[in-house]
């Protein structure tokens, strides 16, 4: 009855779940199958509570994959209902997760790779940095956050490569956007590939920079999700396409979350003819 993907439905055991900063938690899960199969840049959908509430699972990137220990790590910010409930889950408890989902980053094209992370977007970059170093690829890391406290896993990155940091308040590093140290770096040095994750405005700025400089880049995007497996079309993100409209929607959960910087469209052209409202509100 069950087929291969049903194995993605896994019961993980919580090993640790504690705050790094007041509203950012570090979750460590025992999940050997996931740890051995997942790729950096992939994500999981977490069922934060048994029962019907909240209705949907919550998507989180894999921050770190510890294949030997059979563990995966997640860093999550407390935003609303789901992450709030997640903070109450204790070590030893079980957590139903679905994953690995999505495509993940692809390191093939680079000898020296830039990793650009903003805010919680820093989280998934550690896993890819660790893999890169393992594959003898050099990483240069650019991190930006609200304050120094939110420069997640800064020390871990420093073991893996050169790290540049900025903050919004100047508490650590320069008071600037993360694009600044990147652009400065690119004035003298070269990167074969950039992998980035962070808020949409940051990614948009980045897409502009890499286009100008002619650097290949992969962006990890976020979108509100329904199913997480590609069926509901809930997680649409516009990408350039040879349609009459010049774009189409791809699914962040299934076609992404990692997209080529050149294909992502950050704002959809206003539709000329907006159809009348539908009685179900769906269309």
């Amino acid at each position, binding site marked *: *009855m*069950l*087929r*291969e*993907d*049903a194995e*993605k*439905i896994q019961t993980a055991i919580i090993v640790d779940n504690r705050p790094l900063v007041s509203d950012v938690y570090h979750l460590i899960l025992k999940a050997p199958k996931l740890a051995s199969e997942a790729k950096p840049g992939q994500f999981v959908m977490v069922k934060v509570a048994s029962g*019907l*509430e*909240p*209705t*949907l*699972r919550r998507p989180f990137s894999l921050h770190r994959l510890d294949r030997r220990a059979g563990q995966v790590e997640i860093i999550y910010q407390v935003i609303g*209902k789901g992450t709030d409930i997640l903070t109450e889950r204790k070590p030893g408890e079980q957590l139903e997760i*679905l994953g690995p989902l999505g495509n993940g980053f692809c390191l093939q094209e680079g000898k020296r790779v830039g990793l650009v992370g903003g805010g919680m977007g820093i989280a998934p970059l550690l896993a890819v940095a660790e893999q890169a170093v393992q594959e003898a690829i050099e990483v240069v890391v650019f991190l930006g956050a609200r304050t120094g406290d939110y420069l997640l896993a800064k020390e871990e990155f420093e073991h893996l490569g050169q790290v540049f940091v900025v903050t919004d308040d100047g508490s650590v590093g320069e008071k600037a956007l993360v694009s600044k140290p990147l652009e400065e770096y690119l004035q003298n040095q070269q990167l074969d590939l950039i992998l980035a994750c962070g808020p949409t405005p940051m990614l948009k700025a980045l897409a502009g920079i890499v286009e100008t400089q002619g650097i290949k880049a992969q962006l990890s995007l976020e*979108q*509100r*999700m*329904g*199913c997480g*497996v*590609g*069926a*509901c*079309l*809930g*997680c*649409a*993100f*516009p990408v350039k396409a040879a*349609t009459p*409209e010049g*774009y*189409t*929607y791809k699914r962040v959960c*299934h076609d992404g979350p990692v997209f080529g910087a050149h294909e992502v469209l950050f704002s*959809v052209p206003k539709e000329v003819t907006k*159809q*009348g*409202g*539908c*009685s*179900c*509100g*769906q*269309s």
Partner: protein
Amino acid sequence: MGKVDLQVQLGPLKLKNPVLTMSGTFGFGQEYGQYYDLSALGGIIVKAMTAQPRLGNPPPRIAETPGGILNAIGLQNPGVDVAIAEELPPLQDLRCQGTLVIGNVSGYSFDEYCTVTKKLSYSGLVDAIELNISCPNVKGGGLAFGTHPDTVYKVVSGVRAVCDVPLIVKLSPNVTDITEIAFSAAKAGADILSLINTLSGMAINAKTRRPILSNITGGLSGPAVKPVALKMVHQVSQAMDIPLIGVGGIVSGMDAAEFLLAGATAVGVGTANLMDPLGALKVVQGLERFLEEQEVASVSELIGGLIVCL
């Protein structure tokens, strides 16, 4: 599976079990087919198809609400021609195994409904067609086809004339009197009714002061709407004699049993697929377990079996 007889006769359609997956929550079956063997289902109602490809609404398209979700996908689909060429053929194997493949037809005009239905019906690739008449009637001033008895009659009889397979009409719950709409659809030739589609709703982020959905409003589905759906199924089943597919908030075998008792002959599972990739399968299994526990030999015994005595 056990000794319980799960087969039902849904009007002209024979179902191996009464559980269908609902349009828009199951794509064209491909994704969930990686999770389990879809032949465990009574049938699959695929994503809505329109005459032309449709991009759908800008994101965000999904908002979570207490006990439910709002969606405003906007009928994103590759258009009926591509669907016939690429999406429906891989599902044909299922039909040999007795799992029905049902097309869902949407449109923004009377002509569009007819065009899409005709193509699908003639393709030979579907066992039945479900007509989603909750969409706006552009010529009728934007009011949905599905909310007025006259337009319902017109659309359904138009479609009926070009439809060679059994016709299911899916009703919108956003009406004053669902039986009035159900009567019109039946009179116009619907073989089966499915109810309910989503309730119209809205979600707001108080901090940003913006609607969560780019479309502002969306369709509410999931456990939150189950009481509304049950009531409408019961009301229509009391008022007339037409086979019904009960839909709305079903996540368990027990939920399915409630709809059957209320008068539905089959049930549809929507949001539960999003909550759990095995959602629909669990409804089939749960229903079988429920019947075993209750020592009911055939699921048909539940249909309309609600005991009402004051």
